[in-house]
């Protein structure tokens, strides 16, 4: 049959079912062991520092003391994590709205690009802690402060992701869209935004990293009333000379940051890359 060669190309992409389970297990292991190694290195270095008496022993608790405390009495940490994550989610949602709108406007309107493009880059270099005092003056101490700092931290990255994504849409796709009759908003919605999406997700990922840092800055400095977040817990532990508590809070901050990055943004990123055919079939 005339189409045989084309069909063969596609069939060979999907491996037989029997090998697939073994392949998945192998892939899961090869993705997991470097992470386990990283954890082992961190704990090893930490324990080494404790044993070396680099600082007085009561100032630096052993990793096992901290982990034990974390596992035995997780309630405070868990509830504080939820408080912080909720604050962060609110701020990040607003960052996506603002960063998205600004990014699209700057990418599509040349005048705005000249005017606002450099402001966005400038904002990205501004340490988020530096916004906190102003945020407290403007919003006193509350969700407004957190949102303000998070948005200023995350929105520039998100906007930049969108601008880069739109700038790097392959011209041939724009041309194809134009030929098919996509104009103005239709072209933006049906062609430009979907084509830019892989880069946009990269911007969201970076935006999250900035949002998480900004959130901690706000919680540490701007002693927020109401529910206690993880940053406030860290601040309180330091003031109460609870060294185990300091380490506990830091570990939780690190774990949440990494988990959200890999589970939320990493998953979305991989799903999109697979869908767009940007992952090598052998690796993906």
């Amino acid at each position, binding site marked *: 049959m005339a189409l045989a060669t*084309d069909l063969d190309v*596609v069939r060979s992409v999907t491996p037989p079912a029997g090998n697939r389970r073994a392949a998945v297990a192998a892939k899961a292991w090869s993705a997991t062991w470097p992470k386990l190694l990283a954890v082992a290195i961190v704990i090893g270095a930490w324990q080494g520092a404790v044993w070396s008496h680099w600082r007085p022993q009561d100032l630096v608790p052993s990793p096992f003391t901290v982990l034990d405390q974390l596992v035995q009495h997780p309630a405070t940490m868990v509830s504080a994590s939820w408080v912080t994550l909720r604050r962060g989610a609110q701020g990040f949602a607003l960052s996506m709205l603002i960063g998205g709108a600004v990014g699209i406007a700057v990418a599509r309107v040349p005048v705005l690009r000249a005017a606002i493009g450099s402001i966005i880059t400038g904002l990205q270099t501004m340490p988020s802690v530096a916004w906190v005092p102003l945020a407290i003056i403007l919003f006193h101490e509350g969700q407004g402060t957190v949102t303000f700092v998070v948005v200023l931290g995350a929105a520039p990255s998100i906007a930049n992701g969108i601008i880069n994504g739109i700038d790097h849409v*392959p011209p041939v796709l724009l041309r194809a869209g*134009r030929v*098919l*009759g996509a104009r103005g908003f*239709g072209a933006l919605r049906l062609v430009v935004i*979907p084509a830019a999406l892989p880069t946009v997700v990269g911007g969201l990922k970076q935006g999250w990293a900035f949002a998480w840092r900004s959130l901690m800055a706000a919680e540490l400095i701007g002693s927020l009333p109401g529910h206690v977040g993880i940053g406030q817990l860290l601040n309180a532990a330091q003031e109460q000379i609870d060294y185990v508590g300091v380490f506990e809070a830091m570990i939780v901050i690190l774990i949440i940051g990494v988990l959200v990055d890999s589970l939320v943004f990493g998953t979305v990123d991989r799903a999109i890359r697979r869908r767009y*055919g940007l992952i090598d079939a052998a690796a993906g």
Partner: protein
Amino acid sequence: MKPTSDEHMFLTSDSMAPIGSEVVSRPVVSIADVTKSFGTGGQRVVALEGVTLDVDRGEFICLLGASGCGKSTLLNLVAGLDRPTSGRVEVRATRTGLMFQEAALFPWLTVRGNVEIALKLAGIPRAERRARAAALLDMVHLGDFAKRRPHELSGGMRQRVALARALAQDADVLLMDEPFGALDAMTRDRLHDELEALWTSTGKTILFVTHNVREAVRLGDCVVLLASRPGRVAACYDVTIPRPRRIDSPEVATLAATITDQLREEVRRGTGD
């Protein structure tokens, strides 16, 4: 910019209606003394100069020329993606479909989605799109691949999807810019057969750009040879070889040899040797 008589025009079927049966005999694409230049002053490059060409309804025209002869520029003018510097391009069709050397499929959509988006942009109601897309994919022998994504297909299959997408616009005039240029010879030959069959059954007008002489003779009712720098019509050959044709038939080879000689001559003149 206000439209003037010098610019690209689409004459819709409404505007043709009063003229009546006369319309049928008028060329579907009229290119009259078209010049197109890019840039200004010392950097001015003349891509096309004084090109005149009429294409009748249902005709299969191949535009043949070496690189830099303004083939793609000419297609862009007919597609309405660009305007001539002077002269007149008239297209008496509601729409033109355009296919490029790259399939230019949207990677975030399935094969079916790529065809459906063309239907959507052509204003086809949602309920109809699924069935129309399925019929078009069957037409290019990709009915079983509707749910695949472009990156899962071979180059030839991608070009078939691009063809289905171009056909989905229901354009009377199909513009093809070296659509098979990046394919291997076997796949290309097969797509020639399929395109010829599609053209015969749908009666579309096709303007096909290529730098491959045999391909032009294999497909066209007429081969228009374009000279380079600046691009202009050097010669027209009517191809009377009966269809279906084969690219390796002696008749095709003979005519291709004649045209190749002339093409060489044009290239030599163009480079000033």
